[in-house]
């Protein structure tokens, strides 16, 4: 199957035919509209190697996340970045190419933090391998992590090696009625203390936080922090991860990534905060420029996550020097610009 994929990419390179890389199709909404023939990765499927004692799993890009997580579950291990599945059969390749992470991200790390190595096919049809299956590796540039969040524009991922972690032995979710400013303060104060935090959320006057670790540690933290215990907690965090609550049906839906201590943005009430204050989801009709400026002032950036893209594209425009580097890298990995043309930035 790999050979057929390589052949197709070589032909596309020779004819400058644009290709749209697609796995399970769970994240087709994400990014700018692209153009071309669909190149499906679902044929590249299966776990290649899994060594629980090494904390390393290697799987082909088209492998469904659900299959990987079920296998890890048999060994009480997890993908600690809690990749979203959204409403479709999300694959490993798509999760890495989008670089999206779930509620555990501020406390355990992002998708990019767990990538140890990748195999990919570049835009000329050349198979390449970077990184490996070991946790410490500083030989050569970190091209593996460069692929995370590149939305397939630098190459087609065919195989990914990830660091995995033990599943926490116990988890408890607590809730508190708090206004936005107080909730942001609490999230940051608690993150600065040795507490077993693993997720935080604030929406509609309710701060929700998850504790993970040894049962005794979770109990001790709960005793210290108080709050009401949430009973259907797993479902709550899964719905937040997959944006499966009515709030996330609103359009346009903006994702403002900001410094975690940023005070209330005052950009409307339709807001959901997570990641310890570092992500503010906003359902807002305000002009893109207003939202981008607010995010930039708060040390971050704004992405139109769902809905119709503004004229300057879905992602915050890059400073000229950075944009030049992006084009240079794209040119080297995909000289004909065949992969996911326009998906990340309109000019490549």
């Amino acid at each position: 199957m790999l050979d057929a994929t390589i052949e197709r990419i070589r032909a596309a390179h020779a004819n400058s035919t644009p290709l749209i890389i697609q796995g399970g199709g769970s994240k087709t909404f994400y990014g700018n509209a692209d153009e071309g023939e669909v190149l499906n990765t679902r044929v590249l499927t299966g776990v290649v190697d899994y060594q629980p004692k090494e904390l390393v799993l290697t799987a082909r890009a088209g492998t469904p996340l659900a299959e990987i997580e079920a296998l890890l579950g048999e060994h009480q291990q997890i993908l600690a970045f809690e990749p979203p599945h959204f409403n479709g059969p999300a694959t490993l390749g798509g999760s890495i190419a989008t670089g999206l992470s779930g509620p555990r991200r501020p406390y355990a790390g992002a998708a990019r933090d767990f990538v140890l190595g990748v195999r990919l096919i570049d835009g000329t049809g050349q198979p390449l391998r970077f990184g490996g299956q070991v946790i410490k590796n500083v030989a050569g540039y970190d091209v593996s992590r460069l692929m995370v969040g590149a939305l397939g524009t630098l190459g087609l991922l065919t195989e990914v090696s990830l660091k995995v972690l033990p599943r926490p032995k116990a988890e408890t979710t607590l809730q508190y009625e708090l206004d936005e400013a107080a909730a942001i303060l609490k999230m940051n104060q608690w993150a600065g203390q040795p507490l077993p935090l693993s997720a935080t959320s604030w929406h509609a006057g309710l701060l929700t936080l998850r504790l993970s670790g040894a049962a005794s540690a979770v109990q001790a933290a709960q005793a210290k922090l108080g709050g009401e215990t949430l009973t259907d907690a797993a479902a709550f965090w899964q719905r937040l991860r997959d944006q499966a609550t009515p709030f996330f049906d609103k359009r346009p839906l903006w994702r403002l990534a900001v410094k975690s201590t940023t005070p209330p943005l005052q950009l409307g009430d339709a807001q959901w905060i997570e990641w310890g204050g570092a992500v503010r989801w906003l359902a807002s009709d305000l002009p893109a420029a207003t939202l981008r400026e607010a995010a930039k002032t708060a040390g971050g950036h704004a992405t139109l996550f769902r809905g119709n893209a503004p004229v300057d594209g879905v992602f915050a425009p890059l400073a000229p020097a950075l944009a030049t580097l992006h084009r240079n890298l794209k040119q080297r990995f995909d000289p004909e610009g065949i992969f996911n043309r326009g998906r990340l930035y309109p000019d490549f």
Partner: protein
Amino acid sequence: MLSPAFLSKLRKLLPPHCVLNEREDLLPFESDGLAAYRNTPDVVVLPENEAQVAAILQLCHQHKVAVVARGAGTGLSAGALPVDGAVLLVLAKLNHIKAIDPLARTAVVEPGVRNLAISEAVAEHNLYYAPDPSSQIACSIGGNVAENSGGVHCLKYGLTVHNILKLRAWTIDGQLLEIGSEALDAPGYDLLALLTGSEGMLAVITEVTVKLLPRPERAQVVLAAFDDVAKAGAAVGNIIAAGVIPAGLEMMDRLAIEAAEAFVHAGYPLDCEALLLCEVDGVNEEVSADIYTVREVLEAAGATEIRTAESEEQRLKFWAGRKAAFPAVGRLAPDYYCMDGTIPRGQLPHVLQRISEMSAEYGLAVANVFHAGDGNLHPLILFDANTPGELHKAESFGGKILELCVEVGGTITGEHGVGLEKIKQMCAQFATPELTRFHEVKAAFDPNKLLNPGKAVPELHRCAEWGAMHIHGGKLPHPELPRF
């Protein structure tokens, strides 16, 4: 040689005391921590602010003069070795901590700030900067970013790449790059990851925003002795399989144990083939639970002796032997080479067996010190450079060990970097298509190859012969620094 015209322009950019080109002033800069590689720089510049850095780069770019960036000079792979006809750009004077935000748990620092100085500066807030390379009292954060430095705790807390948020960096043509953000991600390609570990080949860093973590409530270490290295290796995997991620997990073999014990009298058992040190940290209750689990696993794995440090004093004593392992081994022979390969942990018994066989073939003894938790192996090859041919034999043996690491699915460098030292072994680890892409990544930033030329990625047409870490007379460069 640099032209007098260029030097005169360079002098106009900086105060007189910031430009060195008298021979006696240049000598301290002729090597980094890998002193076997020496080359006197043509000129050393020590800018005192970011604007001066930008101006130096612009001038060098205009005159097509190469630039080698250097931090504290503690690197172990000759990454900061001066290059003929280049400017050595020393960033040590950019050493201010610009901002600390305890609530957001971040610090903004200049590249010359020492690693440990960050943790010291934020200690009053009960925070610290997690990556702890063994040279942390001297090495600077700019160098840490350039090398993607790790430390004893990186299995649990990650490498530099996991612990930084944002960089200000300058391209060779003097353009400012703001990479990353104060949020947890940034739009576009992950250039933060690409620059981390790029060994001064892509850009020059002038500011780093680091993440800070709350200090663990408690840390405790368990020591276990084994009569068989393979049993100790299996215990490492079993600890992790039991769901514990130790803060530190270290192994030493018989020769290393004996040397360390003779040197610092840590009280290590001597009638064993391997010693494990397993430290767990975190919330008080979590540590208690983990220590219990670790002891159970060690017993089941056949440890001949298990001790738990019951006090901070005892914890430090357990660690003292391990931390002194390099200088201790240095007392066993006139010279030694330190290798830095990483292997999948499960390959440990096989790799140690092969190293032991090669040791017999080459007639050179090896002591093994191992960051067992993350698979990073430091074999120390003992030799005597005064015996004709032994240096060459040791180099050849070291190269074989690195190639063995690659063969079992590992890498030639876990934490010391490629620099000039391991450039030959890069050819063993990567094939032509990957090396070509590395050159293209470089070209995307620095098409004229002016930043740190000749390091990190070998030219395709020549995988030149370079040796390994050569320590003469048991003396490390910077002997005052602990080595792990």
